[in-house]
């Protein structure tokens, strides 16, 4: 490594320093408590900053996609735009609908936000900068990823408003449907890595990133990323907050601080999904020259920009399309993928190829490219065939679209 080692271990170094200094003056348990609290504070701030940067990036990119300029007033390139928005939101009046269920109404944003913060605890920013090397890390993440659903339903229900209720139910249905392919699409990677801890998985990609695993890797990635986007209700899966259909969906009645929390949670989720994807498929901190956590953040951001790209280009799905995609296409694919992964694992193909070093990596890459190309052609053929025969696009309901969605 060309860079000084302390850079490589920034967070750990700082934590150790802090611990040492406090230990000089305070009793042990208090020290632990304080360091923990400080850590939490740092984490939250970190997330907040992260989100602001994300928001700025997203707005800029979307603007460029839509051939606009985007925020450019506050600060250079409008970098501080999101800060301004945040301040505005904080200072806004906090409105609660008259016959809303106050307690639930108040709790909902927290229920949405807290888990998405908790996820950060297991993200392996670096081989030595992982707050908790949880043995069941990925499972922990998936488990926490289900809490926001409840929060959203709470919000929708508590607001005592038909649109919000609809949004809540939509969210519930959508998340429940997409949880299944999400979990299943992660399994192949777990199978290959032989562990469920994110740190372990990242660590296992010393030789080659799992995106390179023939067929399995790319397929798993596509499935996981799609399901993840759906899980966090981002476009094109943003039915729970579909402006054109149900105004703002579940958080219609929210304003000010509470809305900010929802907002925060949404982007935090976006980040964590990208981060997980980066960990599972793109080797986490593994990279060259730069320190690990930088690599991690870079990969995460690239993936996040992919999300933004998708939002900028893809139209929102219809409800029945949404369900069909989850149950009729992604679920079977995940199962097939799991099977393939088992084959790959038992055949020991990857290991043997990787024994050639970087040449092996190239071979895997080539294989994947070929496969992807073939699949792409096949998909097009199939698409045309289906259109030609049944007159129905592949992603639509099997019943005529005239019957419409059945929420």
């Amino acid at each position, binding site marked *: 490594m060309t860079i000084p080692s302390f850079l490589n271990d920034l967070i750990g170094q700082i934590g150790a320093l802090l611990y040492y200094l406090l230990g000089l003056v305070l009793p*042990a*348990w208090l020290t*632990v408590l304080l360091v923990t609290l400080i850590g939490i504070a740092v984490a939250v701030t970190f997330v907040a900053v992260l989100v602001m940067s994300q928001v700025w990036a997203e707005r800029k990119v979307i603007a460029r996609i839509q051939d606009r300029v985007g925020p450019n007033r506050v600060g250079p390139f409008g970098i501080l735009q999101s800060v301004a928005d945040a301040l505005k939101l904080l200072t806004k009046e906090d409105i609660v609908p008259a016959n809303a*269920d106050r307690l*639930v109404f108040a*709790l909902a944003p927290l229920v949405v936000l807290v888990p998405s913060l908790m996820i950060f605890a297991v993200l392996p920013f670096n081989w030595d900068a992982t707050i908790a090397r*949880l*043995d*069941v890390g990925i*499972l*922990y993440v*998936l*488990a*926490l990823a*289900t*809490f926001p*659903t*409840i929060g959203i*339903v*709470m919000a929708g*229900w508590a607001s005592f408003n038909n649109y919000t*209720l609809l949004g*809540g*139910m939509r969210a*519930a*249905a959508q*998340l*429940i449907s997409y*949880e299944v392919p999400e*979990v299943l699409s992660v399994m192949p990677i777990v199978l290959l890595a032989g562990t*469920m801890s994110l740190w372990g998985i990242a660590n296992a990609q010393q030789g080659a990133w799992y995106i390179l695993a023939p067929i399995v890797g790319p397929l798993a990635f596509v499935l996981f990323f799609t399901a993840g986007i759906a899980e966090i209700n981002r476009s094109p899966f943003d039915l729970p907050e579909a402006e054109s259909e149900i105004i703002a969906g579940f958080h219609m009645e929210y304003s000010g601080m509470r809305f900010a929390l929802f907002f925060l949670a949404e982007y935090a989720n976006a980040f964590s999904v990208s981060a997980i994807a980066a960990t599972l498929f793109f080797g986490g901190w593994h990279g060259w020259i730069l320190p690990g956590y930088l690599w991690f953040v870079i990969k995460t951001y690239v993936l996040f920009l992919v999300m933004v790209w998708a939002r900028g280009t893809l139209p929102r799905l219809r409800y029945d399309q949404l369900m069909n995609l989850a149950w009729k296409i992604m679920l079977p694919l995940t199962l097939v993928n799991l099977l393939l992964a088992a084959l790959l694992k038992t055949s020991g193909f990857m290991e043997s190829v990787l024994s050639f070093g970087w040449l092996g990596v190239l071979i895997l890459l080539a294989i994947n490219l070929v496969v992807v190309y073939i699949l792409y052609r096949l998909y097009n053929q199939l698409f045309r065939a289906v259109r030609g025969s049944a007159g129905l696009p592949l992603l639509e309901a099997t019943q005529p679209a005239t019957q419409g969605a059945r929420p």
Partner: protein
Amino acid sequence: MTEVVATIAFWVFAITAVVGALGVVWAKRVFHSAMFLTVALGSTAAIYVLLSADFLAAVQILVYTGAVVILVLFAIMLTPQSVELPTFAPGGQQLGGVIVALALLALMIAAITNQPWPLAAQPLDQPTSFGLGQGLLTTYLFPFELASLVLLVAMIGAILLARED
């Protein structure tokens, strides 16, 4: 030191669990019951962590809060009550329930406290996911398959029951 933390955590989560359970039973509105159920289940998961069953904790959250509670919420939203009906059974039934529950509780506590448990030398604290996986695919293979079958049947049955027409 971790002892202290663990003890504190236990009492905190135990109390939240009990409170959540009571909330499920006592909440006037069904939706609140569901909320309290989430609390109870979540703290149960925490208890699992304290029992160094992290895998189980994750599964608990994944299945219960991820699936069961959501389903419950669904059911609540799909079955709106037109008129306000009494949420509690008549007093006599209440009393009966209380008596039975308390009697059973007393008996259980008595049994628990009086039982000479064959305690292990030191509590079992090892990463569970590997062992569980091992067990599921060797010793408990048959129950495992059976469980999957049960789930399949339940799924089909649920679809059949809940579909309109």
